[in-house]
Structure formats: C-alpha cells, structure tokens
C-alpha cells in the first residue's frame, strides 16, 4: 500500500496558508494515484509529530510543500517526523538538487521516502509558466510579455534565492517571454522597482510562494504600486508607470502544483501510472477562462 504525505507550514492566523496543501491533496486523491493521501503541518493539525501515526501504507512518500531547501526541510521536518538518524548529507544536495532519502521514521518504525521540496523541482518552472497563463487567460502568453519571479531573498537562507534564480533561468531558456527577471522582497533587485527592469509593456509577476498570505496579498501588491491599500484590492492587469502588471499571487495556489508533488514522489520511486498526464490536463481545464 502506497501512501503520500504532503507536509507544509500552515498557520495559526491565516486559513489560506494550508488551503493549497489541501487542494493539491484533493486533486491527487481524486485521481487515485496513491492508496492514501495525508497532510501534516508545522502549525496545524495533524502536526508533523503525529501525522505518520495516521498513515497506513508501507510505502510512504513524504513531500515537503516548501519553496527551498533550508531550515524547514533540513531540520524541522526531519526532527518533527522523527526520521531516525537523518543527516542532510543524505540528500547530497548543492542547495537545489535534493531528491529523496530513504529513512526510518521512529514513530511508526517504518521506512519513509523523504523527498526534496517541491520548490526546487524542475517541474516547478512549468507551474510558474502555467500561473502566467492562468492570470492572463492566454495559454500562449509570452510574446510581448516580461516575466518576473519574486522571492523572499536571502533573509532566511541563501537557498531561497537559488531557487528563484534557478527557475528564472529556466524560463529564460524557454525563449518564450521577452524578458525574465528574478526579483526579491528584501534585497536587490527589488520587486518595488519592478517596472525599472522591463522594457515590455506587459509584465507577469509570479511570487514563488507556497500560499497566499501577508507577503503575497499585502506587501508585494503595495510595494509594486498596484494599490495603496491592499484591502481595496487591485486590478489585473494594473497600470503602473506605463506598464501593465499581471500579478498572479502565490504560485503554490496553481492547480498544477499537484504535478510537482507527484513528480517528487515518482522520483523517489512511487508508481503513479499516468497520474502526471491526468493532473496536467485536469488542472488546465479547471482554470477559469479569461481574456480571449
């Protein structure tokens, strides 16, 4: 029996924090790729401490719904899940390349496949692009558009910026958007000055965040000048300094994120049949039609 456990941060204050985790879990449940799909949280319930004891499978894949390798994926999650003898060297990662480690979870005395975070998987690049398609309502968006990937910056750890650069590079290599730029909230180049970095009139801005919250709903829209007061909302696109800004909100809310979760588990050896194809199609048709 094969189980998927999605672990995420969650929040005591903001119910939107865990909403994407539940949504993606539901998507994966609905296609039956795993016998069981469970979610566990640092701040909500079931807690990381107790989620494994609710899991029934003998092949358990734990996928962290986090943006980058760092404090949470390397210390907090393994400690709280009680992964016996965990050492970050088991991932043998350069900060972007964690794939998975097989390790015994003391709590249940069963082995689990502890996967790298979704944010650094290459499939995440496609989710960023899909997010651009969703927000513009154009599945061919690219021509005449600039693309900004936004992250926290190095505030907590340098790997978070690595993930942003990595995906910005990959989008650049697609040759699909006119210009691609990585921007940060708390360091240069700053998202506040977004319009300075683009020649194109249209700019899609996608924050590489797992969930919408304080940063993506309040700070970034105000910093970019989409609105003076986030509580009043903003237009999509919004007109700023002669540019049209298509602000997408957290990439993690995009339905295609379920695909990255599945990829992580599949890379760790889960057999998921044609789940990837199904998810890619299903999450596409689920998008609201906008524009043409």
């Amino acid at each position, binding site marked *: 029996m094969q189980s998927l456990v999605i672990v995420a941060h969650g929040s005591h204050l903001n119910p939107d924090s865990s909403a994407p985790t539940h949504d993606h879990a539901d998507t994966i449940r609905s296609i039956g790729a795993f016998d069981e799909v469970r979610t566990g949280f640092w701040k909500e319930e079931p807690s990381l401490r*107790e989620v494994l004891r609710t899991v029934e499978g003998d092949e358990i894949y734990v996928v962290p719904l986090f943006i980058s390798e760092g404090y949470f994926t390397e210390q907090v999650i393994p400690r709280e899940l009680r992964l016996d003898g965990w050492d970050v060297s088991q991932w043998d990662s350069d900060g972007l390349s964690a794939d998975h480690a097989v390790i015994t979870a003391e*709590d249940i005395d069963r082995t689990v496949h502890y996967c790298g975070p979704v944010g650094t998987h290459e499939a995440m690049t496609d989710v960023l692009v899909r997010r651009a398609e969703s927000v513009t309502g154009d599945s061919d968006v690219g021509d005449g558009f600039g693309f900004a990937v936004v992250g926290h910056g190095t505030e907590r750890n340098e790997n978070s910026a690595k993930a942003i650069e990595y995906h910005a590079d990959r989008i650049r290599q697609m040759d699909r958007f006119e210009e691609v730029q990585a921007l940060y909230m708390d360091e240069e180049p700053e998202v506040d000055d977004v319009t300075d970095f683009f020649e194109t009139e249209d700019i899609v801005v996608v924050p590489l965040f797992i969930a919408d919250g304080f940063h993506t709903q309040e700070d970034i829209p105000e910093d970019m000048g989409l609105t003076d007061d986030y509580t009043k909302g903003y237009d999509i696109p919004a007109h700023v300094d002669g540019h049209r800004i298509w602000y997408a909100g957290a990439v993690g809310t995009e339905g295609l994120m379920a695909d990255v979760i599945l990829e992580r588990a599949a890379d760790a050896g889960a057999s998921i049949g044609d789940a990837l194809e199904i998810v890619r199609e299903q999450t596409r048709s689920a998008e609201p039609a906008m524009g043409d």
Partner: protein
Amino acid sequence: MSVTLDSIEPNQFDAFLSTLSSEDVIAFDDLYVRYEPKTDTYEFETNEITASRLSESELHEQARQASDYLTNWWFWSEVVGDEVPHLFAFLRFLEDGDEHPVVDRYAALADGMTKAWGQLQITTTLAQDGARQYEIRHVDDHDSSASTLDAYSDPLSARDISTFDGKGRYRPLRTAPSLPTGWVFTELSARDAYETVDTFYPATIANWYREHQGTIDIDHWRDTAERQTGIYGIIDELAYDAVEHVAATCCTDSQCLKRREWQYDEETPLHAEGGDGIFPCREPCSLVVAAARKWTTLEREETETYTFELTSSEKEQIEDIIHAVADDETDDIREADVYEGANRYRARFLREKRMDEHGHLIEADAGHGHSDHEQDTHEE
C-alpha cells in the same frame, strides 16, 4: 431478545465458508465455528446454540438462524478488518463491542448507539445486511431533526466545517470546543466514519488507541521545549510556574478538548487541570509552543510599581474586562448593558477618564506614561 436480522446474504455465507476452509476455526465475539476435515462437518456455537457434525447445508441453516452472529463476524472481519488496529478499536468502542454480547448489541444498534468524541456525537446503526452505518453531528444538535441540518457525506467536508467557528473566526486548534453546529454526516460507512472523525480531530483516534494499548508516548514540557530551534529555541527558559500558567491558560477543557497528559517533566507534575477529554494530548502543541514564545519574552521583564487611582468600581471593571476577554464573552455583552463592566460604553468611559491621549493609564504621582513598547515580532 430476538435476532434483528433474519437473513444472511450469499456473499456473507461464501466469505464465512472460505474463511473456514482456510483457517478451520472462526472464533469471534460470541461465535465459535470449527471445521472438522476428517468428517467434513462443522461445529457451531453461539450463546444460544451448540450444534456439531453439521453438513454444509445444515451449517447454512444454522448460520441463517443465528444471522446476527454471522453478520457481526462478517462486518468486523470482512468489512472493517484488523489491518488498521486503531480504526478497528475505535469502531468497536462506538458500539461497546467488547462489553455487550452480540444479541444485546444488535438490539441496541437497532435503535442506534450513541457516543461522544469531543464535540462530535456519533451514532451507530445497522444496515440491512448487518453492516454498520454511522451518523455524525455536533453534540449540541442532539435534539435536532436531521432534516434541519446541512447534510454531508464526504469525510473531507469536515475540514471546511471545522475551519471556522460559529462566528466565522478561524480555528487554529482543531480540538478547541468551538466547533460550529448545524451539520450532519449521514449513512457513513465504517471507513468514512473513521475518516470524518480523524478530519475533525486529527490523530485523536491513533493517540487514544495508543493510550489504551499502554504505548502512548508522552513528550513533557521540558522534552518539547528543549527540542525547539529557531525562534522557539527560547521557550526552555520558561520557569515551572509560568509553564503552570501556560497549561492552565490553554489546556483546560474550556479551551481544548484534549486531555493534557504532558507534565513539566517526567518527575514533576503540573497542577493545572488537564481536562476530562476522551482523547489524550501527548505533547505541547504548536499553538502552545508559539504562545509560550511570546510569554517567554514577556516573562523576562521585571515588575515595576505603578500608582494608579481607581474607584473600587473601576478596579472591579478592569477585572471584569479581563474576565470577559479571557472567557470570550465580549460578544455576549449587549450594547446597552451598562451594568456589565466589559460593556463597550463602560470601557470607553473608563478610557476617557483614566487614560491619556496616547492610550496609557494616567499614573497618580508622576503623570509619565510608559510609552516604550516592545516591538511585536510577527509570528512565523
């Protein structure tokens, strides 16, 4: 009491025979059946019947007559199964499976057997074939007709129902006694009943089961505090008395329905009430850890002596306001009920009279307010 079901389904008898052919013996609840290969006959025993040397067709007839026993075996071994021990134990608990004989239990199930689990009321009944069906609703809706409640059947709906309380406020603690009312899950299968409860109250069944087995792993305050890193690394500074306050503040039944089993440490119990809940709390939860971080920084402050002048009614009013907030009663105080100290007009009057333009209490002697406020750090 007579049997409540007088037939068995062909698939139930087939499952029965095939188990007997592979295992020779079925012994479950009050049913004992044995296959004797030498004579190709069966021995059949319940609380009412003892029969031996039965042919297969006689066995079938016996089983039909004792259908309660047979469907009971079928439900527990074929429908539920023992692969997930805590699921099995929980469903048994719902019908006092280990306490009452099958026939009595079937009689009770015909009317429905009801158990409480936190704020859930779970009622077990029998379907036609002896499978159990479950209904789950809020305990406060026990008198409501199901048709007046919003009906659900998908266990995952419990997630949305329990995200906000009756006033629309986010519930960060799933076991807080603030579950909204007005909904019902009907005709749930055994598995879905389990999943529904586990969604309302995650991991409570697994922990309850471990406690029953004597294998519950308690992490006391010190264990939990010492394990923390990052911004929570400081909570191990909290003194014993402060931990008492934390437990009394957060873990009593009015705040959380888990029964706190963690203590200060293995040797040092806490005296705060842990509650009477049916499911245990095995370690300080993330909400308590996050709040404890704030208390740790607050507890670092030294006390100072202030002199404020208050009438005795004003002092009482401040006490009333603290109680009203602490007991979540501010919303219940009517706008014009100026007899309540925590009434809005009363509080505004007090503020006008006793506070300066910066919102600080005016001190009697110096008149200098303490305006240096510690910057609140955003919770991560």
